[in-house]
């Protein structure tokens, strides 16, 4: 089964029925394809197996079953240092006993690249990533964003075909995340490197990804490109990550909402609180809280038949019991 990838392009990374066991946790079976130039954003709850999958591709964990192929070559039993993968771990893994230059040229030294070629390659990537002025600095003297750039420069300087990034945005301020997005775009689109990013902070990295893959309990769910994933999140937890404020159990709330599925996901904009007119399903609930969100819209937390919902406050409410309108054309069924 082909899971993802551009059908027009040969898969750069291909996972075939990969199963990895780590203590009591079992990853897979996982099938995945990532094409050259694609940036796959892999997200999901803690313990879903995201990092395990990344490290299985990297070669740190040997799969119990299945195959890992990179550019058509079966690398399942290949040592990590022979796979030609760029890897940026969660803590960046910078070598603090070396300068920025020492870090970036490390993979070239490890591969025995002659000094002159090393210099050229380091200067070129440093120039592209805005690190030229920092080459002789110790990595401990850099800001978080600069460290991120060094880690990416080091990972791609030897021109890997595949780049794996584990939680690259976890320690960055919003400005640095913007830089990171640009870097990922440069690496995947301009250098043509197939990129797999594991992150919990998907809102910030959507612009860098060409495809979203959700992971839960060791299984993958390909949600497709961002636009499709945002309109069809498939899984309840995935919907939460993708900005759906409500995952509603239909039986308890309004069975007519669901069209056969047991739950639907709804953004807060699909639930209007205190509206006079309603184009969807009208319910009544107890108002628990009114608050302003980061987009400066006024939200209301309401309790309908024991189900808590977040909606958009449409006007003034005078009583603690309010009318709630769920626009059923903008809710999506989820598992």
């Amino acid at each position, binding site marked *: 089964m082909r899971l993802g990838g551009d059908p027009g392009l040969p898969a750069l990374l291909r996972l075939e029925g990969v199963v990895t066991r780590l203590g009591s946790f079992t990853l897979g079976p996982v099938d995945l394809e990532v094409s050259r130039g694609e940036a796959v954003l892999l997200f999901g709850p803690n313990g879903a197996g995201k990092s395990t999958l990344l490290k299985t591709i990297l070669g740190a964990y040997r799969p119990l079953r299945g195959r890992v192929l990179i550019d058509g070559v079966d690398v399942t039993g290949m040592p990590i*240092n022979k796979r030609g993968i760029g890897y940026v771990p969660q803590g960046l893994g910078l070598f603090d006993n070396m300068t920025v230059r020492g870090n970036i040229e490390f993979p070239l030294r490890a591969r025995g690249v002659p000094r002159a070629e090393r210099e050229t390659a380091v200067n070129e990537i440093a120039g592209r990533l805005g690190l030229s002025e920092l080459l002789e600095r*110790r990595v401990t003297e850099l800001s978080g964003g600069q460290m991120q750039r060094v880690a990416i420069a080091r990972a791609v300087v030897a021109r890997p075909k595949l780049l794996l990034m584990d939680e690259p945005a976890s320690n960055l301020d919003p400005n640095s995340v913007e830089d990171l997005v640009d870097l990922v775009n440069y690496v995947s689109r301009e250098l043509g490197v197939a990129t797999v990013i594991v992150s919990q902070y998907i809102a910030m990295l959507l612009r860098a990804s060409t495809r979203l893959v959700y992971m839960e309990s060791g299984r993958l769910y390909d949600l497709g490109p961002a636009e499709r994933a945002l309109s069809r999140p498939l899984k309840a937890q995935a919907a939460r990550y993708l900005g759906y404020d409500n995952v509603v159990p239909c039986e308890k709330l309004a069975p007519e909402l669901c069209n056969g599925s047991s739950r639907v996901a709804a953004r807060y904009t699909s639930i209007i609180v205190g509206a006079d007119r309603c184009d969807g399903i009208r319910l009544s609930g107890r108002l628990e809280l009114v608050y302003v969100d980061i987009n400066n819209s006024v939200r209301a937390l309401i309790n309908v038949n024991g189900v808590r919902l977040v909606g958009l406050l449409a006007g003034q409410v005078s009583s603690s019991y309010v009318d709630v309108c769920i626009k059923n054309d903008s809710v999506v069924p989820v598992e």
Partner: protein
Amino acid sequence: MRPSPFLLLLAIAGGLLLLFFSYPIAVLILVGGSGLAEALRVRGFELALLVTIITSTIAAAASVIFGVPLAYVLSRQSFRGKGVIEALVDLPIAIPHIIVGVMIVLAFSWYVGLGPILHRLGINVVDTILGAAMAVTYVSATYTVRVVESALNAISPDLELTAMSLGASRARAFTSVVLPRIWRSVAGGALTSWARAASEAGALFIVAYDVYFGRSLVYPAPVAIYEAYVGLGIIEAAKFSAAMLVVVLGIFVLARLLLEARRGPRTAGAAEA
């Protein structure tokens, strides 16, 4: 601001322990200090100190050569029976050192086990520098293993994984990335093992009460002090004890200071291969 009563209590308790550590040393220096220079001029004792320094240095080197790989495996690998290995590492600290001496003699110099083989090869363990070094290594190497293991545990395995993903072999990842981060701990562990080996007497009573050193038969320093105590009394023993303390502590403190001095800004790329 007044310190809290709890902190005061902690300070008093800790201070009492420090006092318990330092008070006997002060008394020893007070009693034996005046004869310290005289003790250091006694040829037999000079040789005794030299033997002790040599055997301790061999023990420290062996602790690093064999202990660092063991610490690395314990820190990085999970395997069945690891708990047994962990216990085995700590065992030498728990065994009375006289028993260690008996075990070393039985294992390497008697007519069981490796004894006959070593005899045939002309390797003698009893009353030799080799035997003394083996005895003190047995009781001191654990410290290096544990110190280095703690240092390794503080380094994320992701760092080596990253180095290997960048094309480095596991050995290169260790020497380029891990070793530069743990070398102070390796040196600190070796120093602790060295000091522990230098202070060992119990195992030496059995294995190397006196050792062949050049043409002389020399007591290791702790045994020489015991001899002085038994033959000449506690005041004479105090002189030799003070002399040994000054020499051993002097080397220990000097090495610690050197280690601290290297803690300054590191040379960029110094550890690169």
